[in-house]
């Protein structure tokens, strides 16, 4: 397993704790189906993933995870209100050019939405930007600005502001330090490397 994959086990566990056993789960940006596989094993969920990339879907099939290749908004529009018990957006929001409609649609088809993202306000990112005056480059921000991923970096402060503005109810939140493991209780926008939120309508 890569270093990043090891780091990821904790946020997977936290989302796993939030998910009710045997619930119907939609994973937006499911990638290779690692999280869904974990949820199927540990929570016996009835899960479906959505991703754009054929090879990701093929990896899901290899794992035995059901998945849909295509646009996540178009996918959600094909389902009635509240069809899913929970929608998960794990490290996906920051990849989207326009996350707001996705969040709105996820809260329509899902009774709850779990969001996990890398905190762009983390002090190391700020320091890098301050010292070098350039886009941070590290294990999370691996690419140069011109083939930039993530497309839409978001900080904890940004996200909290967005939820307040859109009147989205934050049911739970969990902030992790730079190791993505240890809980972070002080000044999360500065000291948390990773953030998890559960939203409800």
């Amino acid at each position, binding site marked *: 397993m*890569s270093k990043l994959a090891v780091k990821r086990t904790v946020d997977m566990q936290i989302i796993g704790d939030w998910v009710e056993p045997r619930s119907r789960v939609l994973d937006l940006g499911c*990638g290779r189906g690692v999280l869904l596989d974990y949820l199927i094993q540990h929570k016996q969920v009835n899960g479906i993933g959505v991703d754009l990339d*054929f090879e990701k879907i093929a990896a899901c099939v290899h794992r035995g995870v*059901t998945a849909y*290749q295509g646009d996540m908004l178009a996918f959600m529009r094909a389902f009635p209100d509240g069809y899913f018990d929970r929608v998960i957006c794990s490290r996906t929001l920051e990849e989207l050019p326009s996350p707001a409609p996705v969040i709105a649609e996820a809260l329509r088809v899902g009774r709850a939405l779990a969001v996990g993202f890398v905190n762009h306000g983390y002090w190391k990112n700020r320091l890098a930007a301050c010292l070098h005056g350039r886009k941070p480059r590290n294990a999370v921000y691996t690419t140069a600005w011109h083939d930039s991923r993530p497309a839409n970096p978001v900080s904890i402060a940004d996200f909290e502001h967005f939820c307040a503005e859109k009147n989205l109810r934050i049911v739970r939140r969990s902030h992790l330090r730079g190791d993505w493991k240890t809980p972070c209780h002080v000044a999360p926008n500065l000291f948390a490397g990773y953030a998890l939120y559960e939203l409800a309508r």
Partner: protein
Amino acid sequence: MNDAEDIAPPARSEPGEVGLVEPHDFVHRTPFTFESGQVLPGFTLRYETYGRLNAARDNAILILHALSGDHHCAGIHALSDRKPGWWNNLIGPGKAVDTNKFFVLCANVLGGCQGSSGPSSLNPGTGQPYGIAFPFVTVRDMVRAQKLLCDHLGLTCLQGVIGGSMGGMQVLQWGIEFPGFVRRMLAMATTARESAQGIAFNEVGRQAIMQDPEWHGGAYAKGGGPRVGLAIARMMAHITYLSDASMDQKFGRKKKGKADNAAYTFDVQFEVESYLRHQGASFINRFDANSYLYITRAIDHFDLAAAYGSLEQAFAPVQAETLVVGFTSDWLFPPAQNREIALALLRAGKRATYAELDTDLGHDSFLLESPLLYNLVRDFLERGSA
């Protein structure tokens, strides 16, 4: 989740060939009532099998062919055969549909002309071919006849039903009609509801046949008949199996042989013309015009939403897990129609996956050799199976 976790491909031995195969005939000797209400005193299905049926008789995979296909989907009939069966690159020992593991079965559809009962079969009442007195055939009739063949072979279930185009329609119908019998459905380049465009192309093909004076209301002698009309129907249909990009790549504006660029003539000048004429000419030697009418009509009538009230209701009994594969350049059964199958299955609470391959080869993409597609098919069929 975007972490790229490497999945080490399992070591596999070099794929082999099915080799020499021979067709068999299943003769059903009791009356068969078609969806139309018409009855045949019995019917024959010609079929082939590859691989070995296990002791539990539960390792079978059924391959379902498209409009102009047949039961010969893998291997060769004689060492002198120039071409193997139509899906030979998919099926064989160590291939995506692995005949070392599965017992693979494929039958010519009811209404066909490659050995199964169809309009070119002899009507025992008249001693002449049925012609258009043959009962109207639906996709559901084809599937019900195949089930009788499965019962005859003593199969206890099907590990998979696989097909593209009209074969994909049969896949869906199998999962609906015999839900407890089917473990996995793999439908490619298909639809749950034949579109107006699809019906339109079928109708042009039928008109080409029926307007040919040699058609004689379907009552023509074996080997004769509307050869010109059938060839034109095939030429037209063949275009719908390709794409603008693939035709341009394959033929472009290339001239045939020493064709004079400047000559104002209606003889074959472009390679694409020559190719289509060849397609038409070779088709009339292996296909019956009345079968073409019957099978295209069966495709036209295929509309699961109308037949069951809605697509979700149609899929309500399904127990199988489904994989639907669409192809970006398929404009006969475009990706959206394939997606809709997976979405409706999901809405009906079933396990379904949709994958889409980016190819520029059009509708026929599902038949082309693609390691990406084959690995997907193998993973889908073999996960959780013995």
